[in-house]
């Protein structure tokens, strides 16, 4: 691997970082957090050659094209249409190498896990996935997030990769982003002109694309209070047990009125079954107000399967993915309900 030329800017504060992003937006600037995705995507291609209408190849500076696969490391990049080329999906910003990277490694204030005033949890965007995985508090109250990090990439990816990076990269299979959506988190975006808070599920818009403005930085992920009778779970389905991009990822969050039901609220988020992680919208209507027994859960699982719109790619067929959404949603609802019943 060889990286192209760029300069690295090292802000000392969040405001400085935003100012840098704003200043260089026109020349191509990218945010460097853990680097586990960005640096892979920026590498120079091995095959560089002028080709007559080589559709699907990535355009490279100097007019060359690359057949380097943009399989960003740990996340699914499903095809827009089955049979299409993987490379048609490249993010616009990758078509040209950035002149600047803004490296956030000095922003220690974005590296923390703390309780919010209302009893929820606030996680700094630069908190590593390993730190989240090892937090007993997260495992207790936000189990789906802890489980999302359990099999994300590998220990080395988790040591370096950040929660913010996993969300901003906006890969459809992002194992930490899916439970973040499932747990109903809000994202704090800090820009030159101020701060705004947006729901996690509306944040990604397409593979690699989000609603973030060029001068904005994701600074914090805020998880709502975990009520007494609530439980959550995540499962990553893949071909091997580490170093994997999910074939399907499912996160479930259940709040019961009391142990054994009925269901007060439920959220099911799905990864790798659409262009972004998605919320299974028809599940709450099926489950809320009902005792989460076998039949109700089966109905909810079926509803989740109906909500997803996966495609065929080299990691799995749409057919299989739909089946698995149903199987896993059913299993995870059962687990989450059990957890909700035993929460103290």
């Amino acid at each position, binding site marked *: 691997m060889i*990286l192209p030329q*760029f300069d690295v800017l090292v802000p000392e504060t969040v405001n400085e970082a935003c100012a840098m992003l704003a200043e260089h937006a026109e020349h191509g600037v990218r945010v460097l957090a853990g680097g586990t995705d960005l*640096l892979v995507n920026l590498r120079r291609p091995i095959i560089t050659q002028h080709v007559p209408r080589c559709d699907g190849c990535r355009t490279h500076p100097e007019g060359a094209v690359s057949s380097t696969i943009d399989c960003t490391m740990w996340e699914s990049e499903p095809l827009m249409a089955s049979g299409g080329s993987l490379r048609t999906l490249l993010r616009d910003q990758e078509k040209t190498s950035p002149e600047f*990277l803004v*490296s956030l490694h000095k922003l220690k204030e974005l590296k923390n896990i703390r309780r919010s005033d209302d009893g929820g949890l606030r996680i700094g965007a630069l908190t590593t996935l390993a730190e989240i995985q090892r937090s007993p508090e997260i495992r207790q109250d936000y189990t789906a997030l802890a489980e999302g990090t359990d099999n994300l990439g590998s220990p080395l990816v988790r040591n*370096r990769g950040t929660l913010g990076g996993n969300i901003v990269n906006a890969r459809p299979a992002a194992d930490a982003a899916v439970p973040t959506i499932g747990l109903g988190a809000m994202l704090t975006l800090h820009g030159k002109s101020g701060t705004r808070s947006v729901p996690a599920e509306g944040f990604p818009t397409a593979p690699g694309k989000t609603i973030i403005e060029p001068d904005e930085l994701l600074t914090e992920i805020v998880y709502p209070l975990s009520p007494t009778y609530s439980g959550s779970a995540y499962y990553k389905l893949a071909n091997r047990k580490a170093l994997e991009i999910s074939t399907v990822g499912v996160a479930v969050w259940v709040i019961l009125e009391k142990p054994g039901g009925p269901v007060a609220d439920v959220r099911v988020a799905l990864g790798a079954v659409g262009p972004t992680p998605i919320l299974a919208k028809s599940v709450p209507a099926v489950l809320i107000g009902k005792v989460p027994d076998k039949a109700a859960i089966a109905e909810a699982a079926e509803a989740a399967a109906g909500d997803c719109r996966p495609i065929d790619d080299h990691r799995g067929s749409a057919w299989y993915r739909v089946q698995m959404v149903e199987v896993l949603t059913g299993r995870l609802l059962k687990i989450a309900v059990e957890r909700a019943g035993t929460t103290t």
Partner: protein
Amino acid sequence: MKKIISLTVNGVEHELAVEPRRSLLELLREDLGLTGTHKGCGIGDCGTCTVLVDGVATFSCLTLAIQVEGCSIETVESLAENGRLNELQQAFVDQGAIQCGFCTPGMLMTSTELLRRNPHPQEPEIRRAISGNLCRCTGYQKIVEAIKTVAGENDE
């Protein structure tokens, strides 16, 4: 374009002029001649380039040198003391955990991090800890056995 950074590598402080795009791996191998850290893929898929950055197992290929300014780096070359293998290295040698040896430095650094965090890991924790370090020769069996020896629970 080069930037001056300082960092500590294996206990020795270095001040170096590096291109912003220079990876920690390139810095170690090319600027400092520490070729024990290997490059198996360059994109964080194999773990052969693992070093410790402030005690954290890190793939040096996807870490820019600039990002570790002021940090303390440990590579495989730091493990032996006074020309003698440390306990973990000795276990790798004795248990047959080394074949082609290309994964070995990364494997040693990752297990060093593990054993510092938990001196007595059980087998599942060992397997989980090294799951980002690929080995194509051993089937991992003898590597796991070597780490278990050091973890002091190879008695079963």
